[in-house]
């Protein structure tokens, strides 16, 4: 009986709560809504292999004021898979921003052409600001170092798919927790579930106060400087890159860098069913020798990103029937 309860709660959320909705922050979603999204994402799996026309006639605008490969391609592929069309730009130089147009005006122009806007912008809070001006739904595809909610949804989907559950898992987020927007969104998302969170980073790159306080109010969180001390305990290891440019002193970077590289030697102490995730792009924080081990799940994440974004687009544009 007890295992039925979460399922029942999940069904209490209907597709209608997503229609026309902005996706700005994970904090704007309830667990039930996220569960519902993940369920629709799993239903999209067959469509990702073939194609569909449920979004035929719909146009998605991708406004990328910062470089992106995966996220932009993933959104575009998701839209094409569902029969929709894509317009947009991938660099501010190619837009009227170069002529001095501001974001508020840009979205008020683009909304006349498109049914939704997918926005990546270097300013924190840019997606929320854009959504206040746009009449069509805005999806945050990365707002500076603040958040990247759709990445968090696909990370959750990957964990659910690979581990069969999210509740009860011990999850470590490692690397640049201060400036990493994906870890901020993922930490919020994991706090919707009964998880235990380990935050592993150099002192300088500790997670932001506001994220830590919000997450810590819901679930157990501990901060660490060394992955090895907690590795035998954890079920999921989420790795992000430590960026050299974040350190004012290069010597300090050189000193800590080695402690945040995952290779076969480090993984000797890991549980055999540990999974390793990474938002990509990876540089050298996960050695390539790990790619062929059962631990590595980061390339599966990419595929999962496609179905999660297909689900989100279909829900927001009202193509999912109750």
């Amino acid at each position, binding site marked *: 009986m007890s295992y039925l309860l979460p399922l029942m709660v999940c069904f209490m959320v209907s597709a209608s709560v997503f229609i026309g909705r902005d996706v700005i*922050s994970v*904090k704007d979603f309830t667990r039930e809504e996220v569960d519902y999204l993940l369920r629709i994402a799993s239903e999209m799996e067959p469509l990702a292999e073939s194609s569909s026309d449920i979004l035929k006639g719909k146009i998605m605008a991708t406004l990328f004021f910062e470089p992106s490969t995966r996220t932009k391609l993933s959104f575009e592929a998701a839209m094409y898979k569902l029969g929709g069309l894509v317009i947009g730009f991938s660099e501010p130089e190619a837009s009227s921003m170069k002529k*001095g147009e*501001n*974001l*508020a005006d840009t979205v008020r122009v683009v909304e006349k052409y498109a049914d939704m806007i997918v926005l990546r*912008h*270097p*300013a*924190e*809070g*840019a997606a*929320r*600001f854009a959504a206040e001006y746009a009449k069509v739904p805005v999806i945050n595809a990365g*707002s*500076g*170092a*603040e958040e990247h909610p759709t990445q968090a949804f696909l990370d959750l989907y990957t964990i659910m798919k690979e581990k069969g559950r999210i509740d009860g898992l011990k999850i470590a987020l490692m690397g640049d927790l201060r400036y990493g927007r994906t870890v901020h969104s993922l930490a919020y998302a994991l706090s919707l579930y009964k998880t235990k969170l380990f935050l592993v980073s150099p002192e300088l790159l500790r997670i932001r*106060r*506001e994220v830590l*306080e919000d997450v810590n109010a819901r679930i157990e969180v501990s901060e660490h400087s060394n992955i090895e001390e907690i590795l035998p305990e954890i079920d999921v290891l989420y790795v992000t890159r430590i960026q050299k440019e974040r350190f004012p002193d290069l010597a300090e970077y050189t000193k800590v860098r080695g402690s945040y590289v995952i290779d076969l030697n480090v993984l000797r102490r890991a549980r055999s069913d540990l999974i390793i995730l990474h938002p990509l792009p990876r540089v050298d924080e996960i050695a390539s020798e790990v790619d062929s081990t059962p631990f590595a799940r980061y390339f599966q994440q990419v595929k999962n990103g496609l179905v999660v974004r297909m689900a989100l687009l279909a829900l927001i544009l009202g193509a999912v029937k109750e």
Partner: protein
Amino acid sequence: MNAESWETLFMRILQNICLVLGMSRRTLRVSKIRDGTVIDHITSGHALNVIKILGINGRSNGIVTIAMNVPSQKLGVKDIVKVEGRELNPEEVNRIALIAPHATINIIRNFKVVEKQRVKLPSIIQGTIKCTNPPCISNSENEPVKPIFYVEGEEPLRLRCHYCGHIMGKEDVLKQY
């Protein structure tokens, strides 16, 4: 009688006059103002911050009186600021509420209190202060954006930026003035 004795006698007479008129030394230090604003019940130790937040820098006209660590029934000790010849506007009152949430504002005209109000920190603050997170969109000069903060705590002050979620405290507010 020498000069020193005359001076001592004069001081004694002055003290007696004060006592007869019921004025203690304390009331002489913080005298009444004719027109202006009295900011009372300021959290002890924050009088100078109130001065700072009002942009009073010593070069402006009018008498400004500051009393610190004044005994108070309500607060134990409090600070008081009297600003002669200036009535605070609502925006200035909001600013004071950020650092002295228990303060009362008395508008004085012709030595009489014509208006008295307790400052009240609104649940949402718009436009009064800036977000101290530099990459926040609300700091963009090119956008039609007004900073918005949600008040999550009065003492200690805790503000959350509507746009980027950054948390600010009293020290972040004071840095801006």
